[in-house]
């Protein structure tokens, strides 16, 4: 049967199991939107900006584990997706992005709303396509979903010229996908696995460092089994939060620039570091030459380029981390080591570090501390919410003071650090998980970067909660200026911050505000009770609060600085409105 290109596309999406698409219409994608008009099985969520559409698809993918999909028009529609695509690329999130393109005859002529989006997105996609012939369409879509969701996942873009979606062709669904240049390694080398098990058995002070790969591969259970089977303390990277239960006795929380004192000390003191689904980002390692100096490093990752890119590795194991961990577990269980006894002094040492410098902040009766807000959200949501974040201080406090026990509970732009990510991602997560409590922990700076998506949340009756830690500053940059630039607050004070309560109300959402600490809990409780609309919670917080511990850029991760503010007079505090 002959079908139009647009019909072929939608048929392909159905066969890929797509239920939701995030998008924005425009001239050259009219044919696709026309087909969607009658479509019953696939719902298109209209965002208010293409960047919102990509982040929403990304949040949808992170929360559900399925591939996120979005459709935008050519030119500006396509270029508006670039930040979202780069965000997904850095964090290995499976997305398929369809962009419209001017008719093939006009490509290269600087036609109206033409942009070389395949060229523009080449370095920030896992792969991309320009479909020039309608007969290639079905196969291309099939390949794109395959590439996006397998191996180390990532975003794939398909550029669709108008004449391709308007034309007609016979629909042929390729049952098999075979791409000769794409064969990810899923199983670890047997010898390497034996070696890894031996190294674990020999070590006295091991540390597991679990990353985003654990979440992506669905290996949280295996990490827990390995940690428990061989009594190994675990630290997670920012992307790995939820990959190991934050409330587990072996959990040391996050490591790195704003990691816990004990996680960083443990890594620096370890004799074996087992990196699982990590890429040893500079925010984690600090100065690489001083990273984990006494440790042998086992690095398990599906992407061979991650290995030896940033740090030396003693034993690389390339493969899907879940498969590799299962194989290592088999060997470990044969050994029947007396792990508890062997690790006793190591765990004791870590406990001492935990007692010496726990994550903390100074509660204040008069002014709301941002950490207090995050703690209350944790408490009232009983640790079960899906937490999205923006980027900056809000992100770090959300990482430090909320304990994530399940994977896919933590949605944050780790690699690219995209402000404006959290709110649209929360919308996507809420659509993927309608029954769950979804909270975006935001700052007053970041939330303004995609605040227009309030309309999307209101129209779709999504009860997304946004907790704005409102300090009137671009807080993280301000923190660096305070610590390293002699308190010269160049362009980090947001002189005009809108009244977020009124903004929410103007869109038809609910706006709540807390100015004093006792107001925090009632505001959160009220917000959580609203089930049919988004809620903005405007928390007026202490602008002087900083994220600690902190490893300055270029320092080793045990060279942390801590809060010593208590000694200073509080006179600046009064300057706050």
């Amino acid at each position, binding site marked *: 049967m002959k079908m139009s290109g647009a019909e072929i596309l939608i048929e392909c999406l159905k066969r890929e199991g797509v239920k939701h698409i995030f998008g924005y219409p425009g001239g050259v994608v009219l044919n696709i939107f026309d087909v969607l008009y009658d479509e019953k099985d696939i719902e298109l969520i209209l965002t208010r900006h293409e960047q919102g559409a990509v982040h929403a698809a990304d949040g949808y993918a992170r929360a559900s584990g399925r591939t996120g999909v979005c459709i935008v028009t050519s030119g500006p529609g396509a270029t508006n997706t670039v930040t979202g695509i780069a965000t997904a690329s850095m964090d290995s999130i499976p997305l398929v992005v369809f962009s419209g393109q001017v008719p093939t005859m006009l490509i290269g002529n600087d036609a109206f709303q033409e942009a070389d989006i395949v*060229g523009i997105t*080449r370095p920030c996609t896992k792969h991309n396509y*320009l479909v020039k012939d309608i007969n290639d369409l079905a196969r291309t879509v099939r390949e794109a979903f395959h*590439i996006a969701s397998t191996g180390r996942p990532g975003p794939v873009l398909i550029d669709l010229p108008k004449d391709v979606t308007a034309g007609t062709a016979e629909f042929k669904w390729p049952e098999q996908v075979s791409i000769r*240049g794409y064969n990810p390694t899923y199983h670890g080398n047997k010898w390497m696995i034996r070696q890894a098990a031996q190294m674990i058995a020999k070590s006295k002070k091991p540390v597991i460092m679990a990353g985003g790969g654990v979440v992506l591969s669905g290996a949280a259970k295996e990490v827990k089994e390995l940690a428990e089977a061989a009594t190994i303390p675990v630290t997670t990277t920012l992307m790995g939060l939820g990959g190991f239960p934050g409330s587990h006795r072996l959990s040391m929380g996050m490591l790195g620039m704003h990691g816990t004192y004990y996680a960083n000390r443990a890594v620096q003191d370890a004799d074996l570091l087992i990196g699982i689904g990590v890429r040893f980002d500079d925010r984690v390692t600090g100065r690489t030459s001083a990273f984990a100096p006494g440790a042998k490093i086992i690095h398990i990752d599906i*992407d*061979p*380029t991650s290995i*030896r890119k940033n740090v030396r590795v003693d034993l690389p194991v390339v493969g899907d981390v879940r498969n590799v961990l299962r194989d290592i577990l088999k060997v470990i269980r044969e050994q029947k080591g007396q792990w508890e006894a062997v690790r006793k002094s190591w765990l004791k040492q870590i406990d001492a570090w935990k007692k010496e410098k726990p994550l903390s902040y100074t509660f204040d009766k008069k002014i709301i501390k941002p950490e207090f807000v995050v703690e209350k959200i944790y408490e009232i949501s009983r640790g079960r919410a899906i937490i999205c974040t923006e980027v900056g201080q809000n992100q770090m406090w959300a990482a430090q003071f909320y304990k994530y026990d399940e994977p896919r509970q933590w949605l944050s732009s780790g690699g690219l650090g995209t402000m404006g990510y959290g709110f649209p991602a929360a919308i996507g997560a809420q659509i993927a998980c309608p029954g769950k409590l979804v909270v975006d922990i935001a700052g007053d700076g970041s939330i303004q970067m995609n605040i227009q998506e309030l309309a999307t949340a209101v129209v779709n009756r999504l009860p997304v909660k946004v907790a704005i830690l409102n300090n009137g500053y671009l807080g993280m940059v301000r923190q660096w200026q305070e610590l390293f630039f002699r308190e010269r607050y160049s362009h980090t004070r947001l002189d005009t911050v809108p009244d977020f309560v009124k903004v929410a109300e103007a869109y038809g959402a609910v706006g709540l505000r807390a100015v004093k600490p006792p107001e925090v809990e009632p505001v959160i409780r009220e917000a959580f009770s609203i089930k049919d609309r988004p809620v903005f919670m405007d928390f007026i917080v202490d602008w002087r609060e900083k994220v600690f511990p902190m490893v300055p850029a270029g320092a080793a991760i045990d060279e942390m600085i801590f809060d010593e503010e208590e000694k200073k007079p509080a006179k600046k505090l009064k300057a706050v409105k």
Partner: protein
Amino acid sequence: MRHTISVLVENKFGVLSRVSGLFSGRGFNIESLSVGETIDRSVSLMTIVTTGDDQIVEQITKQLNKLIDVIKVVDFMDVDHVEREMVLIKVAPRKNDKSEFLKLAEIFRGRIVDSGPATFTVEITGDEKKIAAFIELVRPYGIKEFVRTGKVAIAREGVKRT
């Protein structure tokens, strides 16, 4: 260290820019790059000459392998192979030097592919050392222009291309 890497790629538009974009985006260095179709017209072969320490070259080959359109990558560093490059050199020897120059070209098995009242254009094929030696010898005669193809390489018989 200088490495000659051969990259088997899908013969599709945009592949060259994926490869060159990888090098520029990650700060790797390209000394030369030559591309051509192979016997199988759906496949092209690129020969890239690059420099870097072991860690960098390891990253280069891994990153190349990661590209979906790349089918196979061979670093010729540890492979017994033959490599060749062709150079066209336009030289303007003085009247008295002409015969001496032509003899020199002959010793290097150069072919005169164009001659005029003022200049000769010589075609030289060989490995890196030969071409470098010829250029040095010819330099005093007055090189007007020269172009090179970039290196191509092929493994010797009996060497497994893994």
